[in-house]
């Protein structure tokens, strides 16, 4: 068996897929791994991430399986599940090996790899949809809107386009606490991601503006008032809004 060891990123895994095809691998006897797992009698091949190779794979995937399925593969690839690289490789290789119309890559849910990719993509998508609603911005003294999130999967790159479309005239910033990643959107310009090490933020610059607390109070008051006491159902609330999101939300502070 050959094990391709690549870094845990979209580009890394797509490069590894490119390399397996370059080396004419048998897909049943090849593995793509993003950690240092060890196998008996395996040959280890390190993968150097190469953006050009990754782009070629991305273009092939888009052409053969369509944008929608490409997006679902990306969703699966930002999941925190270590098995994701292998599952995506198997799924893509299986799709390429036969006739597969666009949009039908993830049809065969009886297949374990396809099923894993499907459920990872769904889990990430769910978290993305949750965070579209549950992200809370606070206005800083500089007028910048600042939000903090702590998602299980790396959804920041998907979240940014949504908010950039929604608040094109605002300066805003989303901080992924778990990965120490910043999404930055200057008003009227394109957004970009920054690693936490490259961002220098003084404590004082995160101080909220004068009106901020007032609006937080108003919203908290609103959330309390909208409740119909006769229908109180905390269990339902908890299943719709899991506790892990609440530490970042103004109305639960």
């Amino acid at each position, binding site marked *: 068996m050959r094990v391709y060891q690549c870094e845990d990123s979209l580009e890394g895994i797509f490069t590894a897929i490119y390399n397996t095809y370059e080396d004419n691998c048998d897909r049943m006897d090849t593995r793509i791994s993003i950690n240092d797992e060890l196998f008996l009698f395996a040959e280890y091949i390190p993968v150097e991430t190469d953006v050009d190779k990754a782009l070629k794979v991305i273009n092939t995937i888009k052409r053969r399986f369509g944008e929608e399925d490409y997006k679902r593969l990306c969703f699966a690839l930002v999941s925190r599940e270590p098995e994701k690289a292998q599952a995506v490789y198997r799924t893509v290789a299986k799709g390429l090996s036969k006739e597969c119309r666009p949009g*039908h890559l993830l*049809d*065969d*849910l*009886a*297949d374990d790899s396809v*099923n894993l990719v499907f459920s990872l993509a769904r889990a990430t998508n769910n978290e993305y*949809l949750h965070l*579209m*609603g*549950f*992200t*809370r*911005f*606070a*206005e800083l003294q500089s007028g910048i*809107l600042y*939000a903090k999130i702590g998602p299980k999967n790396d959804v920041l790159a998907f979240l940014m386009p*949504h*908010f950039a*479309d*929604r*608040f*094109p*005239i*605002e300066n805003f910033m989303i901080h992924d606490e778990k990965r120490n990643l910043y999404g930055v959107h200057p008003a*009227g310009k394109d957004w970009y991601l920054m690693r936490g090490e490259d961002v220098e933020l003084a404590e004082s610059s995160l101080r909220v503006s004068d*009106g901020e607390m007032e*609006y937080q*109070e*108003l*919203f908290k*008051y*609103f*959330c309390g*008032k*909208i*409740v*119909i*006491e*006769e*229908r*109180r*159902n*905390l*269990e*339902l*609330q908890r*299943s*719709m*809004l899991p506790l892990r999101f609440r530490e970042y*939300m*103004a*109305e639960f502070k």
Partner: protein
Amino acid sequence: MEWLATGMEMSLMDKLGILTDAAKYDVACTSSGVERKGNGRSIGNCVSGGICHSFSSDGRCISLLKILLSNECIYDCKYCINRCSNDVPRATFTPEEVCTLTMEFYRRNYIEGLFLSSGIIQNPTFTMELIYRTIWLLRNKYHFNGYVHVKAIPGADGELIQRTGYLVDRMSVNLELPTAEGLRTLAPNKHRKNILAPMRQIQNGIHENKNELVLYRNAPRFVGGGQATQMIIGATPETDYQIINVAESLYQKFELKRVFYSAFVKVNEDKNLPALPGGPPLLREHRLYQADWLLRFYGFAASELLDESRPYFNVMLDPKEDWAVRHLEKFPVEINRASYEMLLRVPGVGVKSARRIIAARRCGNLTFADLKKIGVVLKRALYFITCSGRMMYPTKLEEDYIVRNLTTEKDRIQFGSDGMTYKQMSLFDDGSFQRPVTMQEKLLSAVGQM
């Protein structure tokens, strides 16, 4: 602005409290149905699936800033907390206050947009004009591009409703009560005719607008998210059968996007209102929503679910299970061959899993393990399906047997605030009268004497 004179000195916080309190019984509060990209110059976009921004402690979604413009209502509807004969604090927002609140909440991603309703100030037309002016300000001065849902006030001038329709994403007229008699007893100032007129007008407006949009792509959209309505369940003696028939005809004749049902919460004491010792009829509301889904997405007709002789939904079984056990001649269904329509009728199979089954069985025969992975709820479906001609377990295709098995699950959804579940009592309740088998009985049965 003389009608504002009393409310001027009240703080924004107090007003928000009063007018949220007054609006909370409105249920038609989703943000779905419109997909609109941001325009790059102003704040806001819309996502067709809608976004829930928070959940209140009754488990309902907070998506829009749901407020009344005013609760100074001249009407005296018996079920309503804002009726003019009630002694409750009254307040009225200025249009600017509504706009600032909406914008500031929206910027912080607290809400998806605005839901604006109102008590009747002076007369319906005057109220509608206030709503129109507020929304106009929000769209044109504050350049808000997010979701807006307003109530059309029955009895208001048609021209105003038309103009408001071009500014909002969804409009709704509350049907309030399912039948005209109910309306007469509980809402003496409202008339069925007045409610249906604006509904028809909005429907026609949407139709004309569709034709316009074909010709001119950039023509303004009229109520792009469609219209909705809501009715109160359990305040008047209508049966479930009557209610879903009303809902069905609303979907067919008025092309509504949604009909919402709201379990009656008793906020006023009145001799015409029913006593509800068990709290609001939440289970009934839940069953109606389930049936509503069956009407809209599963191809059921109201007449299939209920009829004159059984006018209420089964308390123990959901409407689909109920239909299935009464039509056992259609089952079991072979998963690998059945049509999409038939798959949809199997309890435990939803729209998504039916689609996935259709896609997945092109690649090979499906087994029960595959169905589980696909997301079929096997504990409900197993009585009604076969995979490659086999059932999952040896089960009987008998109504009593299936009902018994479907209803003994421990993990049924719990209703009511105290976590109580509803259970039909019977003489032979299993579990309650069990005693251990004695040694002697074992011996007797072993030698065949028992």
